[in-house]
């Protein structure tokens, strides 16, 4: 085994350059760069100034680089800084804290925003007017600085302020192409979900302030039973923002409607801020109350299975990715619940592995989900459609997007030698260790059951992404849009995808080394100081080297010499004559067998209609239609919205317009008030 490498190799190379600058100044420069970009767009709106895309992407890249270096710098040096004077949010001044827990998340933000910035120029030419350009850049910068400050703020009020700024900026970013009503509806549903999350957070923060007397996160302890309602509200708020099962409804709409780079940032990083909050408060505040644990386990498991099932039968590429992030978020929350369960039973090793699994999977999911989103966005940019039934045969036309999407799919399905496998392996290992340790029987049963469920969900994810790649990229083009001219070389979008894919593969193969970078975060969260690198003993790096060597050996020795005399001919058509693209497997038929097995959950029903005189033997026209109604949206949310509408309808009926009725209200209230006042 290669010797244990203590410091992340990348850091040791950079230290001489960035010794002098403190992480706080780097993060502040990132915020200043981004907000100056936003102000620049406002100025260009008011004046005739025409902003070149190059400058704005340059600004954005500078901001992300500052964030990346800042997070690396804060890896070695924890720093608490605040602004006593200017931004003072009434109840508490703006105090920030960069410690080892915020390192993975700020690094993720830096990397994903760098990739999104790289990809932006190839999207902005699809935006028609100058005002839309400025709108897009202004709100991206606002969202990015909002996310950064959310990750840094150390007290509840500052957190809420920047959380709201982030949510409002993200919601209005979704309506960049605001002429379409779908984009507006998506923004409203996104806004509703984030406002519900904010309301739950506000209630939880107020309760904790009531208990502890101050708004600072460090002063809050979640281990005393009085903090239980706050912990539950906090978890539900984070679940809404991360998009867990019952509150996932807004996720597919808003990720699908957002423009390319924005969708990458939204799906990659914004969901992770909720996980960061849970880590910061529940884990660091060592919460171990059983109701929260079992609620998290239940919601996480259901959203794992639910998300991937609906992703499998989804026909729109971006919605498919959104549903699959519901699954991954469920996975992270399940691992979080496992950490708290392990702490409750005092099993330190299981707790350490689970926390490392949560941190590493959140980081990895951010990377490969934004990679996939960029791939889907580049497909939408080229073919102007996201419907799988109209795509096909894009591999030859868009080789780089295909490669990026392929690496992203491999890592999301946790294929060995990718970062997805390393983090999912850690979560498997945590559950496995819990089953082995002497925990109560019920929890060991849950752990083993979870191993089975995760295997099931893994297989479903494999099916889902096999469909996504197979239908979208391979085979024959199914529509005229898909037959567009091939991409010319590597444009900046492809560069972004290549950057992210290399990161995924690098993290995957060097899992042992890159994991040891999480030791300080583990130490902060759970006070056990073993090196996280040791949790991943598999020699995954050597194995992938052997695998590559073997494949190339087989390819060169056996297939190589014979490549020149390969004959190309039509695909096997079983004698029916040259088949058109319609004979090809479509997205819905690929997932139909699985849909049929789970038809209760998916509400899948198939109508076949056969016309013709003798319908049984000589059908003239057959029409088959499969309909699938989303169970949660139609049953639960429709009813809830009807109740709210009915309530406000009855209230508006109160305003009858006739003055006599208004006077009657006055006198009735008088009588009621007098009675209440005097008798109380």
């Amino acid at each position, binding site marked *: 085994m290669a010797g244990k490498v203590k410091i992340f190799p990348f850091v040791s190379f950079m230290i001489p350059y960035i010794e002098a600058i403190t992480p706080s100044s780097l993060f502040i420069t990132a915020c200043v760069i981004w907000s100056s970009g936003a102000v620049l767009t*406002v100025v260009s*709106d*008011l004046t005739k100034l025409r902003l070149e895309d190059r400058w704005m992407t340059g600004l954005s890249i500078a901001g992300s680089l500052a964030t990346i270096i800042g997070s690396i710098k804060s890896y070695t040096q924890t720093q608490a800084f605040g602004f006593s004077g*200017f*931004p*003072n*949010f*009434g*109840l508490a*001044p703006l105090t920030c804290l960069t410690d080892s827990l915020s390192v993975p998340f700020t690094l993720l933000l830096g990397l994903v925003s760098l990739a999104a910035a790289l990809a932006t120029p190839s999207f902005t030419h699809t935006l028609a007017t100058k*005002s839309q350009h400025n*709108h897009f850049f202004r709100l991206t910068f606002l969202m990015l600085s909002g996310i950064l400050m959310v990750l840094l703020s150390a007290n509840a009020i500052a957190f*809420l*302020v920047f*959380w*709201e700024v982030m949510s*409002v900026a993200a919601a209005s970013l979704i*309506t960049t192409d*605001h*002429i379409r*009503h779908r*984009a*507006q509806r998506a*923004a*409203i549903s996104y*806004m*509703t979900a984030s*406002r519900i999350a*904010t*309301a739950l957070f*506000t*209630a939880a923060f*107020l309760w904790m*302030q*009531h208990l502890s*007397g101050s708004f600072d996160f460090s002063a809050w302890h979640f281990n005393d039973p009085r903090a239980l309602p706050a912990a539950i509200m906090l978890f539900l708020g984070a679940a809404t923002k991360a998009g867990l099962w019952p509150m996932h409804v807004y996720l597919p709409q808003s990720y699908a409607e957002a423009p390319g780079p924005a969708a990458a940032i939204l799906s990659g990083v914004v969901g992770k801020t909720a996980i960061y909050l849970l880590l910061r408060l529940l884990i660091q505040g060592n919460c171990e109350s059983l109701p929260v644990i079992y609620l998290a386990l239940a919601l996480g498991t259901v959203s794992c299975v639910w998300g991937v099932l609906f992703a499998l039968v989804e026909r729109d590429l971006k919605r498919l990715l959104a549903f699959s992030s519901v699954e991954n978020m469920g996975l992270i929350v399940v691992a979080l619940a496992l950490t708290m369960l392990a702490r409750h039973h005092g099993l330190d090793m299981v707790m350490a592995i689970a926390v490392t699994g949560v941190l590493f999977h959140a980081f990895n999911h951010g990377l490969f989900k934004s990679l996939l989103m960029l791939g889907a966005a580049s497909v939408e940019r080229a073919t102007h459609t996201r419907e799988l039934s109209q795509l096909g045969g894009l591999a030859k036309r868009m080789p780089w997007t295909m490669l990026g999407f392929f690496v992203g799919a491999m890592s999301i399905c946790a294929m060995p030698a990718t970062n997805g496998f390393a983090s999912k392996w850690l979560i498997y290992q945590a559950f496995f260790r819990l089953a082995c340790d002497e925990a109560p029987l019920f929890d060991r049963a849950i752990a083993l059951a979870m191993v089975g469920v995760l295997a099931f969900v893994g297989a479903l994810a494999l099916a889902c992404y096999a469909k996504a790649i197979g239908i979208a990229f391979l085979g024959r083009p199914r529509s005229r849009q898909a037959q567009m001219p091939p991409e010319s070389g590597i444009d900046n979008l492809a560069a972004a995808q290549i950057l992210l894919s290399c990161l995924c593969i690098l993290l995957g193969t060097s899992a042992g080394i890159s994991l040891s970078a999480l030791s300080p975060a583990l130490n902060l969260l759970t006070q056990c100081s073993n090196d996280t690198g040791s949790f991943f003993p598999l020699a995954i790096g050597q194995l992938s080297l052997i695998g590559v060597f073997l494949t190339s050996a087989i390819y060169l020795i056996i297939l190589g010499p014979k490549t020149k005399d390969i004959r190309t001919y039509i695909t096997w058509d079983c004698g029916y004559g040259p088949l058109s693209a319609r004979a090809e497997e479509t997205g819905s038929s690929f997932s139909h067998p699985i849909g049929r097995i789970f038809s209760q959950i998916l509400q899948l029903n198939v109508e076949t209609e056969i016309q013709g005189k003798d319908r049984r033997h000589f059908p003239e026209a057959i029409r088959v239609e499969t309909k699938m109604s989303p169970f949660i949206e139609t049953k639960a949310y429709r009813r809830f919205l009807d109740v*709210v*509408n009915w*309530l*406000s*309808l009855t*209230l*508006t009926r*109160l*305003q009858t317009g006739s*003055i006599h*009725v*208004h*006077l009657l*209200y*006055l006198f*009735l*209230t*008088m009588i009621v*008030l*007098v009675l*209440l*006042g*005097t008798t*109380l």
Partner: protein
Amino acid sequence: MNEFGSLLFLPSIAAILSLVIQNPAVTRKFCALAAWIQLVIVLSMLSQILTGHVPNLPFVSGLAVDRLGACFIVLTTFVVASCLTHADYFFQAAANRGDEYSANRVKVFYASTNIFLMAMTTVFCCDSLGYLWIAIEATTLSSAPLVYFERNKYALEATWKYLIVCSVGIAFALLGTVFIFAASQRGDIQAATLNVSELIAGSKALNFPLLRLGFIFCLLGYGTKAGIFPLHTWLPDAHSEAPAPASAMLSGSLLNCALFGIWKVSTVILAANPTAPAFQLVSVLGTITVLAASLLIIRQHNLKRLWAYSSIENVGLMVFAIGLGSGPLFFLQAVNHSLAKVALFLLAGNIIQATGTKKLNKLHGLMENAPSWAAALALASLAVAGAPPFGAFVAEMSLLTLSLTDHRYILALTITIALAISFLGILSHTGKVIFGAGKPNFKHFAEKRAVAIPVLLILCSLVIGLAVDTATWMPGYDHKHISQTQRKVAEVSCR
């Protein structure tokens, strides 16, 4: 009497002159200028009280300005000044659009606005409940012509309802004042009095059942004027039919006067018996108002009625602040609401003038037609809905923190839910107005000048949101752990 006279001197001159001057352009410019000068006068006269050196400034026996009253006078004058400045643009835009308002209508508008300003200033100077009642009734009567400015059927109906419901409501407030006066007479204090300062001083000796009855009737009367939930029916009609500057003033300053009335009366009953169950009614009424208004906001079809209902919601929040017994918090919420709401009504006026319709489903694509208006509308609606960087967020969070220290968990939870509902209602309506395809027949007229005042107001709200630390700015307010009664007595005594 001389300071009080000099306080009202300039508006009275402006009122008379605006009736005399024939050329409307001159009256417009002159009244706007007079209002800003009045603001300077007010600031100079009340500087001692504002900076806290002098507890209060007595004029005549019944009139005395305390710290809260002084702050409200400054706020009201600032609101009226900004509305009048915008009214200048409003009338020019109306002329440009074709239906020029006749000269004498404009004269009546400016005359009644100045009288309205005088009445509101006297409200905040009143120490005697009798004078307070007269001043509030004067504000109602002087604002009736403002509501009736458009002279069409709807304005007529709105004015009639406004006048009748408010007058009947305030009559009950008079009944309340009578009961309080009877309580002071029956109580064994040396001279029966209506002055709040003396009532507070001898509060323990007052005949409590009578005082409580009087407090309830005053709450009912001034509550009708403020627009508490079951009694709010006149408010949406009056605010949606009045012209934009007038409805801005109605929402921005008139509601504060009625709430100031409720605050004055509640200080008396607080002094008498801080834990009186009757006083709990106030915070419960406030919560009901916030919840009902936020539900009503969802189903609005008219732009100005939407903002009227959001005013009702903020009135509910202020009543809740009064129910908690915290004067400074009541003022913080009032400032943020007035700034944001005036900006919104002025913008609504611009939009209605440019598009010609008030219907929300016909308004869309403001971002295409007037990007600066769209940005201002977005920021202003965020400010009024309580989004963080703006002042309303600070006010609402301090309100909820204070209510939790007072162990009012159910009320705090209801208000958090109601605030979320109203935030979503307001933003979805504003989103529909801003986004979407542009309207073809959009009449542009001096787009940048129209948005000057609203942007100024939004900036003030932003400054309050970011730069003001509630602990230092308001000495009486301290959200650390102080028990309910001890804090109330502390606050009342600092008055």
